[in-house]
C-alpha cells in the first residue's frame, strides 16, 4: 500500500510497525493523536515528502525512488543515517550481546562453544564500531560541509581546512562489508552449534540477529544507492566552483 501525506500517523504504525524505526530515526516523537502524516511532519520540521519517500521505501522493497532521493538535502539523509548508527550501536548491539551472555548457562557443558560465539561477536562489534565511527566522524561531516559549500556557492573555511584533499573514493577504498559476519553468525547458530536446552532464549537471539541483518542491509542500501552517488554528483559540482 502506498503511504500518503493525508494518512493518520498512528494508522501508519498499525499498517507496518517496523516503520517505528523510521519515525524515530527521522526525528519524530510519538503521541500523534489523530494527526495526519503531513501535520506531524510539519510540527517537527521534517519535510513531508522526504518522510513519505523514506517510509514507502522501507515499507515496500520494490519502491525505491532513487532520483527523488537525490533531490533532498544531503543533510537530511546524513541525520537519518547517523541516528541509525546510534540506534544500532546503543540499542541493538547491546541487546544481542546480553542475549549471547544469557546463553552461558545453557552452554555450560561446553564453555568452549560459548567463548567461540562470544568472541566472534565481540570481534564483530569492534569492526562495526570502527566502520560507523569513520562514517560519523569523517564521511558525514564531509558531506555536510560539501553541501554547505555548494549552497554558499564557495568552499566554506571548514571545508578548505578539513576536507580539501578528501573525497568519497578514499572512503570507498577502505569500506568493508559489515553484513557478512552477521550472515555467518546466523548460520552457525542455526546449523552448527549443538542444540541448546532453552529454545526460547535461543530463538529470541536469532530474531534479533535477523532484525539486525535487515536493518544493516536497508542502511547499506541508502548509503550505496543514494548517499554515495549523490556525493559523487556534488563533488563534480564543487570542482566547478
Amino acid at each position, binding site marked *: 500500500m502506498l503511504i500518503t501525506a493525508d494518512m493518520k500517523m498512528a494508522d501508519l504504525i498499525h499498517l507496518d510497525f517496523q516503520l517505528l524505526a523510521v519515525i524515530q530515526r527521522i526525528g519524530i516523537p510519538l503521541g500523534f493523536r489523530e494527526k495526519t502524516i503531513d501535520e506531524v511532519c510539519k510540527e517537527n520540521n521534517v519535510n513531508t515528502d522526504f518522510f513519505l519517500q523514506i517510509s514507502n521505501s522501507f515499507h515496500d522493497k*520494490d519502491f525505491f525512488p532513487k532520483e527523488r532521493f537525490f533531490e533532498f538535502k544531503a543533510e537530511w539523509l546524513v541525520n537519518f543515517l547517523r541516528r541509525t548508527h546510534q540506534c544500532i550501536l546503543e540499542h541493538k548491539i547491546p541487546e544481542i550481546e546480553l542475549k549471547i551472555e544469557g546463553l552461558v548457562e545453557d552452554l555450560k557443558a561446553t564453555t*568452549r*562453544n560459548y567463548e*567461540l*560465539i562470544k568472541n*566472534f561477536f565481540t*570481534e564483530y562489534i569492534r569492526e562495526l564500531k570502527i566502520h560507523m565511527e569513520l562514517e560519523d566522524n569523517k564521511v558525514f561531516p564531509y558531506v555536510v560541509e560539501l553541501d554547505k559549500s555548494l549552497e554558499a556557492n564557495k568552499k566554506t573555511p571548514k571545508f578548505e581546512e578539513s576536507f580539501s584533499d578528501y573525497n568519497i573514493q578514499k572512503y570507498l577504498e577502505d569500506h568493508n562489508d559489515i553484513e*557478512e*559476519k552477521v*550472515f*555467518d*553468525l546466523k*548460520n*552457525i547458530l542455526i*546449523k*552448527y*552449534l549443538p542444540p541448546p536446552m532453552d529454545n526460547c532464549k535461543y530463538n529470541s537471539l536469532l530474531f534479533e540477529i535477523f532484525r539486525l541483518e535487515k536493518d544493516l542491509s536497508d542502511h547499506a542500501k541508502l548509503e550505496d544507492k543514494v548517499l554515495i552517488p549523490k556525493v559523487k554528483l556534488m563533488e563534480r559540482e564543487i570542482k566547478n566552483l
Partner: protein
Amino acid sequence: MVRIIIADPSYLVRKGLSTILNELKCVTQISEVSTPDEISDAIISEMPNMMIINTSLSSIPEVDSLIKKQGTELNIISIFNSPLPNNSSEKLISILDGKSVLLNKLRNQVKNVQQSTQQQENSEELSDREKEVLQKVALGKTNKEVANELFISTHTVISHRKNITRKLGIKTVSGLTVYAILNQIIGMDDIS
C-alpha cells in the same frame, strides 16, 4: 532450494515473472534486479542457481563476461522483448509469450535445476580436500600459502573456498574458524 535472479529493466516484467515462478510451487528464492551493478552484487550475495535475464542487459559486455565467468553452475534463461518462433529453445522466453508457454518452459527449467541442486545439496558434506583447505584457511593462512602447502594453484584454492562457502553458508574467515573448531577440524589451541 532453487535460487533465482530475475534481471530485467522493467518492473512490470520482473513482477510478472515472479508471480509465475511463485505458481510453480517448488521452493524458490527469487530476487529482482534491474541494472548491471545490481546483477553483480546479487550474484555474490544470493549465490543463484538460475538467472532469467533480459537480452538488453546480457548484451552489455561487462554483464556478458560476468555471466561467462559463472560457468555452467549458473543456468541462464534469456528474455526477449520481441516475439520468438514457436519451436524456440526452452532457455529463451519472450515478453509476448502467453501463460502456458511461459509456465511450461519455466517449469521444466526450474525442475532441471532443482534436480541438480538436490544432488549437490545431498553431498553437502565437505570433501577431504575441502576440509584440508578449510583447516588452513581457518588457521588464518592466505590463499597463496594454502596453495603452496597443498601443491595446488591459487585458482584451485579459490574454487575450493567458493564451494566451502556454498556448502556451509559461511562467508568470512572468522566464521570458518568458528565452524572448524566446532567440528574439531582445528583445535582451540591452534589459534592465538
